[in-house]
């Protein structure tokens, strides 16, 4: 594990050094001689949140650099560097930590990804949740989003894609808490039906992963979000191995470009050490113009300790191609161990990319 962490550190450091030349033009020119091309993209994500449970106020969600590199025609690399963020705990690890190499084979052959990456389960490979206010089921369904490991991905035919991955199951920049590994597989197929584009994915996962209390939002509550023990239902801290469970998960996900609308969905089912867990998530996005769109979301999650149901509506507007403003209202009703809670949250977000 130490060697793996050192590898990730060296990757980040190397890419930072390569990308620290005065201008991108010079970088491209200089790096050509070594067969290395790098580019850095910066992002500021600031949010104002008002909620009835927990703190309200303005937050710096992320000031980050995303560095990508192409090393000849054989290797691509990417690293995400959080320069500043108010996020803490395992919620931070769900947003930050990408750092990986992709080893490319010949055209048509699978590629191999090594490092810390977004795990290939459900809609995660195709839906970039990192910059969104509204999230999918992964914080509860998996308990992680980015994890260290190895992934093989490729195509079975022109329209059918697959991913196979082995990861450690404890999130980025953390040691393997139990020595167990998480195995996952996903296959998806792209279809064109009349004027509609549809992608359908099937995923399966088995391994030991954290289980969050349904009364907590791991993304918003940082280190305060509790894990729950499967045997006793007791709440424990995020690094307590008792808050992990042997999970089995299956998912059907889809992405449906229906005319001008986009509908995404995910059905998850499985168990935590034999105790049922399941959830459903549906997102509808309707564009009013190139710049403006409205979204609506329905979601539900149920596990051995309790359940939550939620809905949300939102509005997105591009001020420019590199400036996005979003506002969303989300309500969740959660029940766990005889306790009930309703959470209302209004979030306004402003993103600048440069």
């Amino acid at each position, binding site marked *: 594990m130490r060697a793996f962490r050192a590898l990730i550190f060296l990757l980040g450091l190397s890419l930072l050094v390569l990308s620290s030349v005065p*201008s*991108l*033009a010079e*970088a*491209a020119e200089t790096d*050509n001689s070594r*067969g290395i*091309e*790098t*580019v850095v*993209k910066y992002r*500021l994500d*600031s949010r104002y949140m008002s909620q009835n449970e927990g703190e309200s*106020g*303005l*937050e*710096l969600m992320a*000031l980050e650099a995303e560095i990508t590199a*192409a090393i*000849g*025609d*054989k290797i*691509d690399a990417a690293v995400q560097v959080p320069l500043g963020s*108010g996020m803490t705990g395992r919620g931070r690890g769900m947003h930050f930590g990408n750092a990986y190499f992709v080893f*490319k084979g*010949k*055209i*048509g052959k699978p590629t191999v990804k090594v490092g810390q990456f977004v795990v290939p389960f459900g809609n995660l490979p195709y839906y970039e949740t990192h910059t969104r206010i509204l999230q999918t089921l992964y914080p509860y369904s998996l308990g992680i989003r980015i994890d260290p490991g190895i992934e093989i991905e490729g*195509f079975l035919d*022109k329209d059918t894609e697959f991913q196979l991955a082995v990861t450690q199951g404890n999130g980025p920049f953390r040691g393997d808490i139990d020595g167990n590994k998480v195995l996952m597989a996903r296959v998806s197929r792209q279809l*064109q039906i*009349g*004027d*509609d*584009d549809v992608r359908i994915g099937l995923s399966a996962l088995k391994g030991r992963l954290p289980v969050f209390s349904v009364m907590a939002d791991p993304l918003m509550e940082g280190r305060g979000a509790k894990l729950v023990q499967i045997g006793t239902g007791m709440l424990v801290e995020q690094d307590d191995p008792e808050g992990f469970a042997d999970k089995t998960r299956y998912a059907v996900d889809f992405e449906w*470009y229906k*005319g*001008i609308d*986009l509908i995404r969905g995910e059905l998850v089912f499985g168990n935590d050490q034999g105790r049922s867990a399941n959830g459903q998530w549906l997102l509808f996005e309707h*564009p009013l*113009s*190139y710049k403006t*769109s409205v979204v609506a979301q329905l979601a539900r999650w149920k596990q051995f300790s309790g359940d939550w149901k939620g809905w949300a509506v939102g509005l997105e507007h591009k001020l*420019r*191609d*590199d*400036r996005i403003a979003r506002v969303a209202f989300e309500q969740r009703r959660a029940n766990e161990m005889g306790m009930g809670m309703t959470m209302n949250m209004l979030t306004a977000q*402003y993103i*600048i*990319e*440069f």
Partner: protein
Amino acid sequence: MKFHRIKIVVALAVALSVAATSSSYAALCVWRKPDQDIKEFFPGAETYKTEYKKPSGSQEKAIEKRIGTSLDPDESEFKFYRILNGGKQVGTILTHLGKGQFGAIEIVVALDNNAKIKGTAIQRDREKKRAELRSDKFLGQFRGKDKNDPIKTGQDINPVPGAEKSSETVAFSVRKLLVVYDILN
């Protein structure tokens, strides 16, 4: 303490809003299906490598003069995907994010080594006549064209009926990529 934090976030957002107006930023359009596109446009090719191209001030002006409008804020850099076979370059693929009526139209253009179009594809879009826009009847019109062709709807490109604006967005993206390639290659 909290008020102090708010001031920092606001200051950062305002500073970056101002500073980022002229800063560098990579074009957003990703190439989603390299394998399939290479198989379709360059059958037999073995691999590809990515070259980043950032136009200088004079090159930017030259591009803008030829396309008749400003580059987008996120177009300070372009990616040239060099397609290789046996170590030799057999062509280049470029991508562009066009502004459709209801969202981005992601366009892929494959060029041979003489900068003639070998093929054009749409990766993603939110337009109303999706199947017709992606048909060979429409996209096939771009094949064989180069920087000397007008590539405009109503001139050498017939638009998809009922999707005239979307058709012109595609044509403009192709035209822009040919100009970018001509100046930065």
